[in-house]
């Protein structure tokens, strides 16, 4: 059993335990707990990162820009400005005298050199402390260069990653509503919260196109400023990764009256349901028929292959630790589809409702955890004798050190895991992790003896 810090006891729950308290969550991480979370800046950077025709400039010392250079797998079909790392690289004298002049000069030179459609300026920890008026600099450059130059108030200490999402959405809201909306079909949507990792947005877009739905903007997946400007002309906002984008959807509902719905593109059931939900929203019989056709074609193609993987994976145990809890729901059901049991599930930023729902869908004894850390996670993996751990780069070495399979389901992944095809990739990846012969050599399976195994 894990040594769980006293301050964190209420953030860990075992389904079926006698003293089932509501899970504590949405709190600042406990000092010294070695949380897997990043910070406000990270939240903003994640959301805005895939906007490929904007210059993203990190205002602060070099670290924040270094650690986020080309870090994610968000693909672009055109410009790739998002894959460059720009920083004001503040030095000691800037800290003393303020960084405004440097920011102004950096913005001007980068805009002149790269001709972006917009610029995002990420304020990091010390910017607020040294008193830079980022807003004023952005306004000035915007006037001079004739493009939106948007401050993102993402000082690392000003809350959690979720506050960073909000700061990013605030910046986006300044762009939405500034473009023309003529020629937008009444059967149209914005795709929110898909980041086009390994081209996932393109797959999703293709399903919608086949349904007869016009996609006005993907906001954050293969994102373009001109599309975002027109986003308010869409008839519906379809929100994945609800933790980051619900705020934007709600704001657009208030401001432009656009309804929104939550979807998930992971797993066969959730993917199909998403398309059906959109079709039903438009109350268009032909569209519904087309959707049924798409789902049928895709399922006929992948179900037999999934069945093969299921044979091998039946009864294997999985653990999940992801950023947003919403993704975890889909993963639990996708794993179940492969015959696997989820014995531990957690997230960095889940809400009370999220954890309530997880408790509903998980089996007895499943560990549910909020804002966990390496010592807890490793002890859960050991206790539950997990076969495959699903998480991000920071979770990977925990699994590997213990000789446990791992599947990257975070923003660094190179395999498309969304959509029908993505489910097949996911199954293939889990299968490849669980079935590798290397585990048979690990101390976990056979100790450290050099004895020759007959």
């Amino acid at each position, binding site marked *: 059993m894990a040594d769980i*810090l006293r*301050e964190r006891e209420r953030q860990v729950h075992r389904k079926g335990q006698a003293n089932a308290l509501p899970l504590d969550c949405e709190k600042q*991480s*406990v*000092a*010294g*707990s*070695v949380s897997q*979370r990043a*910070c*406000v800046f990270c939240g903003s950077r994640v959301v805005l990162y895939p906007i490929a025709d904007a210059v993203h*400039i990190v205002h602060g*010392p*070099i*670290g924040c820009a*270094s*650690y*986020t*250079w*080309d870090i994610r797998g968000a693909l672009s079909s055109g410009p790739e400005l998002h*894959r*460059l*790392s*720009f*920083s*004001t*690289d*503040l*030095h000691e004298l800037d*800290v003393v005298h303020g960084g405004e002049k*440097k920011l102004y*000069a*950096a913005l001007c*030179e*980068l805009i002149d050199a790269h001709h972006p459609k917009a610029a995002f300026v990420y304020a990091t*920890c*010390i910017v607020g*402390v040294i008193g830079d008026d980022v807003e004023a600099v952005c306004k000035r450059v915007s006037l001079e260069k004739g493009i939106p130059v948007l401050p993102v108030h993402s000082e*690392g*200490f*000003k*809350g*959690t990653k979720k506050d960073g999402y909000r700061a990013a959405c605030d910046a986006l809201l300044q762009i939405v509503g500034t473009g023309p909306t003529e020629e937008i079909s009444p059967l149209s949507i914005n795709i929110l919260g898909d980041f086009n990792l390994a081209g996932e947005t393109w797959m999703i877009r293709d399903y919608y196109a086949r349904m007869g739905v016009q996609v006005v903007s993907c906001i954050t997946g293969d994102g373009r400023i001109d599309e975002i400007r027109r986003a308010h002309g869409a008839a519906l906002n379809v929100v994945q990764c609800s933790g980051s984008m619900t705020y934007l959807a709600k704001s657009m509902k208030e401001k432009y009256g656009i309804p929104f719905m939550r979807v998930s593109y992971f797993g066969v059931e959730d993917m199909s349901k998403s398309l059906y939900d959109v079709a039903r929203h438009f109350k268009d019989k032909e569209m519904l028929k087309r959707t049924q056709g798409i789902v049928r074609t895709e399922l006929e193609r992948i179900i037999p292959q999934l069945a093969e993987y299921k044979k091998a994976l039946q009864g294997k145990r999985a653990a999940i630790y992801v950023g947003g809890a919403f993704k975890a729901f889909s993963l639990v059901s996708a794993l179940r589809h492969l015959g696997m049991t989820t014995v531990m599930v957690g997230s960095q930023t889940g809400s009370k409702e999220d954890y309530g729902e997880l408790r509903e869908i998980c089996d007895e004894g499943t560990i549910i955890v909020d804002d966990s*850390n*390496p*010592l807890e996670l490793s002890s859960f*993996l050991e206790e539950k004798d997990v076969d495959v751990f699903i998480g991000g*780069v*920071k979770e990977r*070495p*925990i699994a*590997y*050190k*213990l*000789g446990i399979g791992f599947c990257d389901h975070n923003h660094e992944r190179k395999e498309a895991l969304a959509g029908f095809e993505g489910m097949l990739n996911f199954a293939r990846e889990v299968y490849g992790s669980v079935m590798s012969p290397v585990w048979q050599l*690990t*101390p*976990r399976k056979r*100790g*450290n003896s050099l004895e020759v195994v007959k």
Partner: protein
Amino acid sequence: MSSQPRATNRVPPPNWVSTRNPCKACAPLGAALVMRGIAGAVPFLHGSQGCATYMRRYLISHFREPMDIATSGFSEATTIFGGGANLRQGLQNVTSQYHPELIGIATTCLTETIGEDMHGLLHEYRKMKEGTPSPALVHVSTPSYTGTHIDGFHDAVRSVVEQLAEAGATPSAYVDRFLNMFPGMVSTEDLRFLKDVAKDFAVPVTLFPDYSETLDGPSMEKYEKIPEGGTTIAQLRATPSAKASLELGRTLRTKNTAASYLQEHFNVPAKRIGLPIGVHETDIFFAAMEKLTGHKTPDKYREERGRLIDAYVDGHKYLFGKRAIVFGDEDMVVGLTSLLAEIGVIPVLCASGGKSGALARSIAEVTTHVRGTVAVRDGVDFMTMAEETQMKDLKPDFLIGSSKGAKLARELRVPLIRVGFPIHDRVGGQRILHLGYRGAQQLFDLVVNTLLEVKQDSSSIGYSYL
């Protein structure tokens, strides 16, 4: 005929204000790495939650090992009222979770800017814990707005030594007079090499930091809260009793280092040489070891040297006149440049994001035999390197440096030979041996084979024998 390399500033690049595709990380990262090289230690960053997480991720992508870094996790209130309470809570929680022997605390840009009094805060904490068993606390000031991860690394080495050194302390394990060795930021395999050399010279050594095991450990049945290995606190306390300190890195001449501290305060003679990369620099290293220990270089190394030079001869034709861009951490760049220079490759551009002020001079020292011009750039980023390559028509045949150069190599359509730190798009980066004759052998083979591969792949005939 040999010509001295000249600094080439004939076509000054435009004076960019921004840093574009950085060739450096920030200071606390280097400090956290050093703390991971102390036995039973947990690295701790005093600042925002994100710093620890980003640096963990960055280090994990290179070492592919668990890398726990704790943090005091600043909030808005902490930033206004000071981080004392968070620091206390953080230290207590790390103590109760990890049971460490030492917590190595590094500051960040945020805590330095708001002017946290670390001495005072830690003094208070120690007083509060008086009488109860508590881990040793060391701290280093690493404002991210000053220097790079390499500065953070060396500052941490010095701070730890300063805070733990005790005159007269001797580790019982050492029967003979021992050496301090400060290797700089090298690979886990390099650290193992240095320990082997010390063993072969029959001299006890305090190698600091030593993350050869903590960041390159075996597969485990049970998760280790703090991985085995590292320089022990007893060893660090005894550094003033060493017969000498050997520190690696020519560019350290402009820094106040652990070795210079021990010399100044405890009269421990300090010997500074370059990273032993290539024959010349490794010869200097073994000469220093002979002098410091009074023992002759074991035959094993003479044999390695012999084989290396034989290999140089076998491969020289494939290399002569080839042009390379060398980039990365300054001392790594100096070492690699020395190796390239002695095998006939022209290092047309030696570049680093670091700015010790000693790069040009150090490069000049190791390139006296180079025919051609060596451009040296410190404090640069990758886009500046790209512009310089184009502007000066450098026509490199290959790049040698960290994974961070992958984009530049792709643009230039030349191979990138991955060495140094970080290597996050290949496996085994943490295990590359750069040092010693054997390290040079591996690098040499890698360089030659990379060029042969290009030659073979681009040939319409595709000769089977090259």
